[in-house]
């Protein structure tokens, strides 16, 4: 068994308490530990990504056979998500350290590591209840990060964030209860195997479970109508945290891709096209919400937050088709939109901290107006889906994949018109932020981003370390564009694997320890059903 599979969860889980409880009085020490840990995480993630080429690899926790214990599953999809998380984490962490955000409150690094643990755990698990546990971890850690360094507005938004997401967690528990009641199992592979075999009379329960889970994951993925928490949360969070949160919405998207295509796909009789039928209009409206938000935003941070909502809409439109070509597009767009959001938030931090406000009204230019303008231009192009960056390719792929007659006009109109509104919104914002102030000094900013007219004395110029993360995010977009061919080749292998339900099921259930014993007991258990159901399920819920 490949023990490295669990390493990206255990590493931050062991590091975080040490940073938080032992190193808490020394910021430099915590920084070194956190950076080293994230670097190691990145190395592990690359290793896992390279090793995830073949069939899904399964890690049987506690050496218990599936579906009785908990399993971790490393397949192409989870390896991709873990790698994406690690790369993003490294970028964001450097930014937070370079800008000093991490020292503006307590426990940034510990919470950051816990957050990574939660996100990565969610990507790796093969058990829906365990997914719930990791949702809890990432929720509470993200709450801590979100309110990092305090402030009235942030605390307010943080309260909303945590309350609404706790409501989502409660619903998650209900949904798990329904799933267990309908199928008697929580292992994803086992669910995938049992649900199609259920008698017709059980279909109603399965459908309820599927739809409740869709709402739960949709809440994380900021889908209409449960997206309302996102704009305020992202725009109030410290910018590097908001950049890290670019991966949080993807957790919701990942969960839908994973769980709903494994257990409630279109070919399952009980659910049929129900998930697509609900997901598609929700995603379309989400695009509209994002587009209107971008166009109507009066402040920079909400503008970016709404553009994230819009990008989730486009992503979920592709997911809603539940077929390989569209899923390939969705995965490509997922990677792209993660970096695009991160680039924008990180850049916004550099600008807003110098401009001292993110309100989109005329204010004096920042010291590095030219440089920031160029970076903003690039990042906004990425987010709005204009060439030459990957957003354009991603959108083309999504459009190209959405060819079902009933969906095409809606999807195309929403994505194209949404893009236009986003472009206009970003152009307005950029013009106000970077062009208009040049009129104040009476002369245009000289070339090559060097010496502007008169730098305000107290404004610190952003050093290389502060700018590097933003540039890296944009460079990531450029790489995703340049290597679109090989990358989407990987994506299409990945989506083929996502829809290869039999492969997943047999990898999880046929492998593993003490298989014989398991089969024997399964027979025994078939004889005396369900008496003990209450003993098992609430026991899990006990300590929450």
């Amino acid at each position: 068994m490949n023990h490295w599979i669990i390493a990206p969860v255990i590493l931050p889980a062991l590091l975080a308490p040490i940073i938080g409880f032992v190193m808490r009085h020394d910021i430099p020490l915590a920084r070194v530990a956190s950076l080293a840990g994230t670097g190691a995480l990145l190395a592990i993630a690359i290793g896992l990504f390279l090793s995830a080429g073949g069939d899904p690899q399964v890690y049987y926790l506690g050496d218990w056979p599936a579906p009785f214990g908990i399993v971790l599953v490393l397949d192409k999809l989870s390896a991709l998500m873990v790698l994406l998380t690690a790369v993003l984490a490294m970028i964001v962490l450097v930014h937070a350290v370079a800008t000093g955000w991490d020292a503006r409150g307590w426990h940034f690094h510990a919470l950051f590591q816990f957050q990574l643990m939660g996100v990565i755990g969610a990507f790796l698990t093969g058990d829906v209840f365990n997914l719930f546990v990791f949702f809890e971890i990432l929720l509470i850690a993200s709450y801590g990060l979100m309110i990092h360094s305090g402030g009235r507005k942030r605390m307010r938004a943080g309260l909303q964030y945590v309350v609404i997401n706790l409501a989502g967690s409660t619903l998650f528990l209900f949904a798990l209860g329904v799933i267990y009641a309908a199928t008697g199992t929580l292992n994803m592979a086992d669910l995938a195997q049992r649900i199609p075999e259920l008698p017709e009379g059980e279909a109603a329960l399965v459908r309820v479970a599927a739809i409740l889970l869709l709402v739960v994951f949709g809440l994380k993925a900021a889908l209409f109508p449960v997206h309302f928490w996102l704009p305020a949360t992202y725009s109030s969070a410290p910018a590097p945290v908001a950049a890290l949160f670019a991966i949080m919405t993807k957790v919701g998207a990942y969960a839908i891709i994973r769980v709903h295509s494994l257990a409630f796909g279109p070919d399952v009789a009980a659910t049929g096209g129900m998930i697509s039928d609900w997901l598609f209009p929700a995603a379309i409206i989400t695009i509209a919400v994002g587009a209107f938000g971008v166009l109507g935003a009066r402040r920079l941070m909400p503008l970016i937050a709404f553009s994230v909502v819009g990008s989730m809409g486009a992503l979920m439109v592709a997911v809603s088709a539940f077929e390989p070509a569209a899923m390939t597009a969705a995965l490509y767009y997922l990677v792209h939109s993660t970096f695009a959001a991160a680039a924008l938030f990180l850049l916004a931090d550099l600008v807003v901290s110098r401009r001292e406000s993110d309100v989109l009204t005329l204010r004096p230019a920042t010291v590095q107006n030219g440089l920031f303008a160029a970076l903003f231009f690039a990042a906004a192009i990425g987010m709005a889906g204009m060439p030459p960056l990957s957003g354009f390719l991603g959108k083309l792929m999504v459009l190209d994949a959405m060819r079902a007659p009933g969906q095409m006009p809606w999807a195309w109109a929403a994505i194209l018109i949404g893009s236009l509104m986003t472009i206009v919104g970003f152009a307005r914002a950029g013009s106000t932020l970077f062009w208009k102030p040049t009129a104040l000094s009476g002369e245009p900013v000289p070339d090559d981003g060097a010496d502007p007219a008169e730098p305000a004395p107290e404004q610190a110029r952003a050093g290389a370390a502060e700018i590097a993360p933003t540039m890296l995010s944009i460079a990531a977009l450029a790489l995703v564009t340049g290597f679109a061919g090989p990358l989407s080749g990987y994506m299409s292998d990945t989506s083929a694997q996502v829809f290869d339900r039999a492969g997943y099921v047999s990898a999880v259930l046929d492998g593993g320890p003490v298989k014989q014993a398991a089969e024997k007991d399964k027979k025994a258990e078939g004889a005396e059903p369900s008496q003990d159901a209450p003993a098992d399920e609430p026991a899990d819920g006990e300590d929450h």
Partner: protein
Amino acid sequence: MTDDSFSLIIIALLPFLGALVPGVMIRAGRNACAIFTALPTALALVMLLLHAPAVMDGEVIKAELDWLPQLGLSAAFFLDGLGMLFAGMILGVGLLITLYARFYLSGEDPMGQFYTYLLLFQGAMLGIVLSDNILLLLIFWELTSLSSFLLIGYWKHLPEGRQGARMALAVTGAGGLAMIGGMLILGNIVGSYNLTDILAAGEQIRAHEWYVPALVLILLGAFTKSAQFPFHFWLPHAMAAPTPVSAYLHSATMVKAGVFLMARMWPALAGTPEWFYIVASVGLITMVLGAVIALFKDDLKALLAFSTVSHLGLLTMLLGFGTEAAAIAAVFHIINHLTFKAALFMTAGIVDHEAHTRDIKRLGGLAKLMPITAVIGTITALSMAGIAPFNGFISKEKMLEEAVHTVWWENPWIVPALATLGAVFSVAYSLRFIFHVFGGKVRDDYPAKPHDPPFGMWAAPALLTVLVVLIGVMPFLAEPVVNMAATAVTGHETHAHLKLWHGLTPALYLSIIAVVGGAILLALHKPLDRAWIAAPRPEAKAIFDRLLAALAGLAQRISEGSHNGSMSRYLAIFVAATTVLGYLAWSGSAAAAPSRELLPIPPVVMVGWVLLLVATASVVICHRNRFRALVVIGVIGLIISFGFVYLSAPDLALTQISVETVTIMLLLLALHFLPKATPVESGAARRLRDGVIALAAGAGVAALAYVFMLRDVSTISGFHLANSYKGGGGTNVVNVILVDFRGYDTYGEIIVLGIAGLIIFALMEALLNGPAAAKLRNTDYSQDRSRDRHPLMMVIATRVMMPVAIMVGVYIFLRGHNQPGGGFVAGLVVSIALLMQYMASGFAWTQRRQQIEYHSMIGWGVVIAGLTGAGAWLGGKPFLTSGFDYYHFPPIEEFELATAMLFDLGVFLAVLGGVMLMLYSLSRIARYAGETVNVAPMDYDPSQDDGGEGPGKSDQTERER
């Protein structure tokens, strides 16, 4: 890959690579910058011309690199006649513009930036005309929109520049997005995004049911780019750009992109009635409209801009005719328009540069002051007017010739009539350009004294003027080029016959009418101008701005109105949506009949149920009184615990009771610092709404519970029962599940607890260092404080109980693996023992006797649990694999040691640490808020006796912090 195709890719890439140069070379000075900018362009042009002989022979040079094969996108380029013509124009004019801009831009303008943008734009344009893949073409198409956005907004300190740039981006960007849709449909029809394939599949495309949508969407892209009615309004506003930009983008290149696209797609899309009626009509309207408006523009550049609109309309119309001859005429006019319009823009720039104004009404008589410029301007303007012997004459003749042959909606005269009308106005504004700028008397009120510019500045327009004359006098020189391009447009070999003198054709008569009419119009210009100014007419920019502002306002209302920050609304939407979706999902298929009988309801259950209902209802009713609500919540918790007892789940009952106790106690302590009542925040209607939603959701949950209690399901728990002792070493299945089967979940949950501890600490720090701290300090808590702060009985009782309670905790911990209990419950029990000390003897007093650092306790708990799990790796087993064995040390009985116990210890520590950290935080707040440390354990607050003395005066107390 052959050398040819390699060189093609280099040509396409050169401008982009070159774009890196000027930003750096500006440091070497402005001349060096300009020279180094010209280098890549010149190199690309030379390489391009090397291919010219082959292309003229009808050869098509191709190159392809894989990019995104899954989508059908490849970096495929091809060079045919049309591409050759346009690429030559783009690069050739690019060189001239580079030269011109060197002298045009002032020392204050960041020239490096300018050249970078210019090369980016050049690369994008070149990409459009060389793409052999329509997706690649789309990429370059949008790139031209973006780079022209930067160029138009180059003078970013000018509001016109910014607004013009945004308008151009919005309009051309919108068209580009529409075109994406059109191109994707086209690709779908043909089954390939390869341009060569698409051009070969014209029949199939035109017969397809999706032909019209594809055509309309693609034309939207072309029309917006080429400023066709009704999208023409952005072009004049883009004139806020520096003149070199206008000369380049708005005469030679970008606006021609739309025309190029129509020419490129001509074999695939043209020839249908739809094509004719849309393209030709739009072109015709644009031609006339642009010419009319141009006559009344006083700004030289605006005049030229509307003239460009008009000429683009002419080209569009010709392509719309769909005949081969018209296509030849279009290609020829593309060349001619390029030569005279670029020169005219540069002339306008020179005038502006020298006279410091472009307002025609302030100019006049410049012929004497700047003779060279006047010659250039006059010749090119005559060509624009279509007057012999200049090249514009020939192509206008051809256009009128084609118009005469065109029947529009069974009407043979409307097209020639309108075309002539356009020509009349075209002559009028061209003559106005000559007479009102260069003609007339020398004035003495120019903003600056004009004179001819240095050679470098007039060299470029002069060269173009030479071309204007050459092509006009010897049109056969242009024939091979026109044939080359027209062959590529029409798809088969064409033979253009370009002659200055065609004989007495109808076109000639129309031309004469145009010249005479134009001269008359100019003579009448003054009264006409007055009438024009007085007449009401739609101002496109105002409409566009209002529209955009309205849209932005609407967007703002929608997004701010729906995201108004009301948590109760968000939750209501969440719950309502969930309930409705759940109901719809449920009702979508029939459920099977229950497989279990309903059991009779015993009285004790009935009592419990009624109690639960009453208690819940009470919470709803009295939730504003927080203490009372808390007590009732405690009741609910207890009934649930009894429920677990009744259903034979002692572990759950134990956990539930201890969790309940700890939370209620902590909440009680916390409430001390909070208002005791919740304010009324919602009206009756809102409460009714929430009540309905809550009842519906509750009913849904109840229904679900009812359904699944009435059915048998085979579950995986049989395995857990069977393997608990055998494989997990414990007889208490619940505990084995927690620490072994699903230890990973528990591990996650104690981490949640640990994180909560961190957050509480961080929050408290923020609180005590923030503005809330002052409020906390200034609140007087003495009002409702008991005199008997720490009652004797309670203090004694809790101290006696403490060792017992801790022992119970240890006992529960140890027996956990086999009997109800475990680390989680044990942690809670011990923390209750400590909690009671806080309640009985006071925060401060207890805290002083508590030297354990709870922070570390949580940390160690998490680390111990994690390391225990990782210990399994040493044995080569997966994380959290447990090991256990039985030992016998006399005199103790045989006992079991399991690694699970160590894991449970981690759980115990994390739970205990978590609860105690919360308590510690509360006690810090308490002391911050002014609670005093009682020196004696049993404390009587004398200040409450007569109210005269403040608590601080008591000598039995000391105040902390």
